[in-house]
C-alpha cells in the first residue's frame, strides 16, 4: 500500500506538465550555475596563481638589498580559491584577495569582488548553492502543498484511510514519492558538478575534497528532506490547497529572505565593530608606550642593550658577536605582533559574536543551517577566510623575523649599506596556502550541524505526531 502510494505520487508528478516545466527550469539553472561557477572561480584562481608566482619570483630574484629593506619590500599573499568554492561562493566575493606582508605592519586584505561591483552584486550570486538553498525549497513546496489537501478536497483521503493505512503511513508514502522526484531533479546537477571536478583535477583529487563534496551533498539532501516533510505536515494541517500553499510560501519568504538578513543585521547592531583606523591607533599606542604605559619603545631598547652587554661581559655593543640592530628589530617585531594579534583576535571575536546570532537563528530556520554548512564545506565561510588571514600573518611574521635574524648574524652593528645577494632571499620559502581539512571545517559549524539534525529529527517525530492528530472532516 505504502509503496503504491509512493509510486502514484511519483508518476502523477511526472504527468503534471507544470511541475515538469518548473523542474526543467531549476535543473537548467543548476547546470548553468555549475558551469558559470566553475568558469569564474577558475578565472579568479588563475589570476591569483599568476600573481602569486610573479611575486614569489620577484622576491627570490630581487636586487641585492639590505635585509631590512627586504623586510619592507615584503611579499604578497593571494588567497587561492578552494577547490569546491565554485559550488558556493559564500563570502569569497566579499573578502579581499590580496594581503601585502611587510615588516612592522599588518595590512588589510584588499580588492574584494564586491568592491569592484556595483550594488547589483547585493541581489545575490548565481551559484549552485543559491539554487539549492532558495529555489529547490520552492520547487518542493510546489510539489507537496497539496499532499493532503488535494486528497481532502477530492474526498479520496477517507477512502485511503478505509484501506487500513494510518495518516502517518500515507504521509511517509508521499514523502517517499516526493523524495524520488526531487532526487530526479538534483542528481544530474550533482553528478555534473562531481564529474566536472574530476575532469578538472583527474586523479589528483584529494580525498579531503571528496569528503567535502559528499558532505556538501548530504547536507543538502537533509535540507530537502526537511522541506518535503515540513510541506507535507503543513498540507495535512490545512483543509484547502490554496491556504496550504500560501502558508508554505509565507514560510519560505520568512526563512529564505527575511530572517537571514534580519539576523545578520541584528548581530551588527548588537556588537559594534571598531574601525580599522581606531584599531591601528590603539596598536600603535600600546606598542609605543608598552602595554602598561610606562615602558616606552626607546627605553625598552636601551634596557635590552644593557642586558646584552652585561650578559656577554663587554663594554660596547660593537664588541658583541651579534648585531644588536637586528636583535632590537626582532624584539620590536615580536612586541608589535603580539599587540596586533591581541587586537585582531578581539576584532574577529566581535565578528564571531555577530555571526553567532545567525547561527542561533538556524534553530528557527533550516535555511541558515544549511547555508553555513554549505559555505563551510565549500571553504568559503568566515572560519576559512580567517584561517587564510592568520596564515598570511604567520608568514609575514616569520619573513620579518627571518630577515631580522640575517641582519643580526650577518651584518655589523650600524651597518646600513651592506647589500646581500639575491641568493639570500632564496633561503625563504614562498607563501603557500593549504585549505584546512574537512574535520576542521566541520568543527566550526557544530552549531549549524546540530540545528540541521535537530530539524530533521523534529519534523520526523513531532511532525508525524501532528499529522496523526489532524481531524479528517
Amino acid at each position, binding site marked *: 500500500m505504502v509503496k503504491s502510494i509512493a509510486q502514484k505520487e511519483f508518476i502523477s508528478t511526472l504527468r503534471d506538465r507544470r511541475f515538469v516545466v518548473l523542474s526543467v527550469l531549476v535543473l537548467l539553472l543548476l547546470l548553468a550555475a555549475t558551469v558559470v561557477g566553475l568558469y569564474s572561480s577558475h578565472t579568479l584562481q588563475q*589570476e*591569483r596563481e599568476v600573481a602569486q608566482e610573479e611575486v614569489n619570483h*620577484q622576491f627570490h630574484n630581487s636586487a641585492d*638589498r639590505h635585509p631590512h*629593506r627586504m623586510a*619592507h619590500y615584503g611579499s*604578497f599573499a593571494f588567497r587561492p580559491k578552494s577547490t569546491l568554492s565554485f559550488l558556493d561562493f*559564500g*563570502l569569497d*566575493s*566579499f573578502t579581499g*584577495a*590580496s594581503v601585502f606582508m611587510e615588516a612592522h605592519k599588518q*595590512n*588589510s*586584505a*584588499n*580588492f*574584494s569582488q*564586491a*568592491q*569592484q*561591483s*556595483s*550594488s*547589483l*552584486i*547585493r*541581489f*545575490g*550570486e*548565481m551559484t549552485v548553492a543559491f539554487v539549492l538553498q532558495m*529555489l529547490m525549497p*520552492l520547487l518542493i513546496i510546489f510539489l507537496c502543498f497539496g499532499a493532503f489537501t488535494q486528497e481532502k478536497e477530492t474526498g479520496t483521503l477517507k477512502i485511503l484511510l478505509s484501506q487500513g493505512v494510518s495518516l502517518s503511513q500515507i504521509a511517509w508514502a508521499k514523502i517517499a514519492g516526493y523524495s524520488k522526484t526531487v532526487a530526479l531533479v538534483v542528481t544530474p546537477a550533482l553528478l555534473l558538478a562531481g564529474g566536472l571536478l574530476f575532469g578538472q583535477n583527474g586523479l589528483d583529487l584529494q580525498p579531503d575534497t571528496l569528503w567535502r563534496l559528499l558532505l556538501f551533498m548530504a547536507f543538502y539532501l537533509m535540507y530537502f528532506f526537511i522541506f518535503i516533510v515540513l510541506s507535507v505536515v503543513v498540507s495535512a494541517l490545512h483543509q484547502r490547497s*490554496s491556504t496550504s500553499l*500560501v502558508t508554505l*510560501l509565507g514560510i519560505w519568504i520568512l526563512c529564505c*529572505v527575511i530572517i537571514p*538578513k*534580519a539576523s*545578520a*543585521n541584528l*548581530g*551588527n*547592531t548588537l556588537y559594534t*565593530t571598531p*574601525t*580599522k*583606523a*581606531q*584599531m591601528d*591607533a590603539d596598536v600603535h599606542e600600546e606598542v609605543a608606550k608598552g602595554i602598561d604605559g610606562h615602558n616606552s619603545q626607546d627605553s625598552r631598547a636601551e634596557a635590552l642593550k644593557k642586558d646584552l652587554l652585561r650578559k656577554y661581559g663587554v663594554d660596547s655593543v660593537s664588541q658583541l658577536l651579534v648585531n644588536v640592530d637586528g636583535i632590537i628589530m626582532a624584539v620590536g617585531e615580536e612586541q608589535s605582533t603580539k599587540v596586533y594579534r591581541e587586537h585582531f583576535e578581539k*576584532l574577529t571575536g566581535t*565578528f564571531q559574536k*555577530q*555571526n553567532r546570532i*545567525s547561527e542561533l537563528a538556524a534553530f528557527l530556520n533550516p535555511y541558515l543551517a544549511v547555508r553555513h554548512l554549505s559555505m563551510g564545506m565549500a571553504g568559503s*565561510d*568566515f572560519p576559512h*577566510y580567517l584561517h587564510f588571514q592568520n596564515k598570511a600573518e604567520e608568514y609575514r611574521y616569520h619573513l620579518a623575523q627571518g630577515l631580522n635574524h640575517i641582519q643580526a648574524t650577518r651584518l655589523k652593528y650600524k651597518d646600513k649599506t651592506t647589500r646581500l645577494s639575491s641568493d639570500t632571499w632564496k633561503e625563504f620559502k614562498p607563501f603557500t596556502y593549504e585549505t584546512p581539512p574537512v574535520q576542521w571545517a566541520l568543527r566550526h559549524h557544530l552549531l549549524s550541524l546540530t540545528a540541521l539534525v535537530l530539524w530533521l529529527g523534529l519534523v520526523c517525530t513531532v511532525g508525524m505526531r501532528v499529522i496523526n492528530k489532524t481531524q479528517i472532516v
Partner: protein
Amino acid sequence: MKKFWILIKYEWLNFRADKGLLILVTLTLLAGLYGIYYGTTEVQRQQQNIAGLEKLTEHNVEELKAKYPEGTDAGDIGYYHSTFAVHHPDSWASLALGQRDVNPYYIKLRLLNLQSQLYDTENINPQKVLAGNFDLSFVLVYLFPLLIIGLCFNILSIEKEQGTLPLLLSQPISLPLIVGAKLTFRMLVVLGLGLLLSILAMIWGKVLPDGRVALWLGVVVLYCLFWFAVAFLVAALQKNSAFNAVTLLGVWLLLTIVIPALLNVYVSIKQPVPQALALTIQQREVVHGGWDKPKRETMDKFFALYPQWRDTTEIKERFVWRWYYAFHHLGDVAVQDLATQYKQTLLARHELVQKLNVLSVPVNVQGIFNAMAGSDLPSYVQFLQSATRYHDRLREFYYPFLFRQITFTHADFAREPRHSFASAPDMKSATAGLLKLLVSVGIVFGAGLLLFRWKTASVK
C-alpha cells in the same frame, strides 16, 4: 461612482476581519520601521566614526609635536604623520545604504606613495555584508512586492472559489468595476504604507528636503503600481488562487533574484577587472626599485614632472627625504595608467548595469534609490579620485619644505590641507531610471488591460 465606494467600503470591512492580511500589513510596517532604524543608525555610526578620525589625527599631531621639537625635517613628519581622506554619507544614504558598507568610507594617508594606501579596506564582517543591508530600500524593493502579491493574488479567484462572483455579478455592477474597486482599495493600503514609511524615514534621517523628496515618493508609487500591474495581469488570466500565488511569486523570484544574479554573472564576465592585482604588484616593484637606481636618474625623472624644483641642490648624501619621496611618487606615476584604467573599468561595469537594468524593474529601482543617495559604485570611484587629488595637495604642501629645506614648525601642522568629500546624488541616472520605470508600468498595465478585456469577452 457610488457603487465603487460601496465596494471599497466592503473591501475595508473584509480586510479588517481578515487576520492574515492584517498580520501581513503589520509585519511589513514593522520591517519598514526596522529598516529605517537600521539605515539611520548605520549612517550615524559612519558619521561618528568619521568624526572620530579627526581625534586620531589630532592625537597623531600631538605625538609628533612631542617627538620632534620645533623646526624639524619635514621628511620625518611626512613619514610618521598620517591624516585621513573621508567620504561623508549623503543625508539620503540612510534610506539606501547601497555599497557604503562594502567600500571604505575613509582612507588613511601618509606622504608615501598613494597606490599602496588607496585600496586599504575597513574592518568589515564579510558574513554581514553578504547578508546585505536591511534598510528602507530593501523593504521597498523586496518586501513591498511580496505584500502586494499577498494582498492581490486571489483578488478575483477568491470570489470564484467562494462562489460569490455570480452573486456579485447578478447585481448591477460590472466585472471591471469589481476588479477596479478591489485593486484601488489595496493600492490605497499599500501606497499609504509605502509613503508613510518613506516620509517617516526622511524625517528620522533628517534628509536634505530637495527635489529628491518628490522623486523618491514618485518612484515608490510607480514601483508599487508596477507590482499591482503584474498582479492585475496575472488575475486577468482568470486562473485559480494557487496558480496565481505560484505565478506571482515566480515573477517576483525572477525579477528580484534570478535575473539580477544572472546579470551579475554576465557583467563580471563581460567586464573583468584585471588591473587591481597587476597594479598592486607593479607599484611595489617600482617604488622599492627606487632605492637601487642612481639618484640622478630618479631626480631627473621627477624634475621632468616638477620642473619648479629643478634648481635645488644636488643630492650627495646617502639618504635624503626629498629623494625618498621623489621615488615614491615615481612609483605612483608608473602605475598611473593602470590606476586610471581600474577606475574606468569600475565605472564601465556600472554603466553596463545601468543599461541592463531594463531587464529587471527591482534592479532599476534599487539603482534609482542608490543613485539618489549617492551610495553606489560611482560615488566610491569619485571618492578615490578626490583622495588622489588630496594626496597631490599634501605632496605639494610638503615639497617646498623638502626641496627648499625649510624646517617644519609646529605651527605648520595647522596649515596642512585637510580633506572632506561628500557623495553627491546622481540625478541623471535617477531620472533616467524613473523614465524606464514609467515605461515598464505602462507596458505591464497595458498588457493587463488588453488581456482582461480579451478574457472577459471570451467568458461572455
